[in-house]
């Protein structure tokens, strides 16, 4: 697992993500093999441990699909649902960021803030 100082930094960056983008309801950083590193959520009670593991599964499937299709690396996976949107993206080869919003019209905000967050995290992990 990651060093405690690094987990603290990830946690702080997730807190900033939720502050900067009020439409994001929860965010999780997970390892590629499904261990949660950091999480933040608002007033909801999402099962974020479970979401972290599922995030690793989905990103791996995304990578497998894009490799089969020779489309390069998988940047994002977006799950648009009746009651919100979930986005999955690589931070680096070993970490995945999962973010979600309950607002169906907030895909752009969700993706842009999440992408910036993932890029910043990639610089310090």
């Amino acid at each position, binding site marked *: 697992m990651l060093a405690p100082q690094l987990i603290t930094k990830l946690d702080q960056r997730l807190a900033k993500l939720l502050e900067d983008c009020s439409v994001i309801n929860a965010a999780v950083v997970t390892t*590629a093999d*499904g*261990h949660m590193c950091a999480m933040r959520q608002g007033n909801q009670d999402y099962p974020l441990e479970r979401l972290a593991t599922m995030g690793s599964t989905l990103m*791996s499937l995304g990578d497998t699909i894009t490799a089969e299709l020779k489309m390069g690396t998988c940047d994002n996976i977006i799950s648009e649902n009746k009651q919100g949107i979930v986005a999955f993206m690589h931070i680096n080869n070993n970490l995945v960021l999962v973010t979600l919003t309950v607002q169906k019209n907030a895909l752009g905000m969700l993706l842009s803030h999440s992408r910036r967050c993932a890029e910043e995290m990639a610089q310090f992990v």
Partner: protein
Amino acid sequence: MSEIKLVFTGSAGAGKTTAISTISEIPVINTDVRSNDFTTHLIRQSIDTSRKETITVAMDYGELTLDDGQKLRIYGTPGQQRFDYMWKILIKGALGLIILVDNAGDDPVGDLARYLDNFREFIKETSAVVGITRMDLSPEPNLEIYHEYMQSHGIRLPIYSVDARSRDSVVMLIHALVAMLEYG
């Protein structure tokens, strides 16, 4: 030509990915990633360098055509309990289950019990066979112990010692399962 969906499941490191790779006629689709279970890994590595450093986080997939023309679509599940949602997804539409248990694991009989329990309803409706791997490295518990465990829980399934790296060994397991499906 008929098609059958089979699923390999079982404990982490038991050889599910290896078994599918050993017999598949197509390049295996797998979703292995580097394991971050550093502590466990390092402890195990110090005593056993054959342990793999990756884990399956979604599924493996391979295909095999039997001599009688039956085409097998073979799926492998992740081994860790935290991925149990994939077990439920992958078992849908399957006709049979192969449970692999790593005999060199910490609690191999407990591992078998866990998978029998998780797939209890599926096994009741269809069938399963059990393969015990790595008995060359860890001969105990022997097959009799597993038989006794299953008998004491009213479960009657074939159980074999297998080598996931051996095509003959894996094909034997599949033939046993197909026979169970055909003849009960």
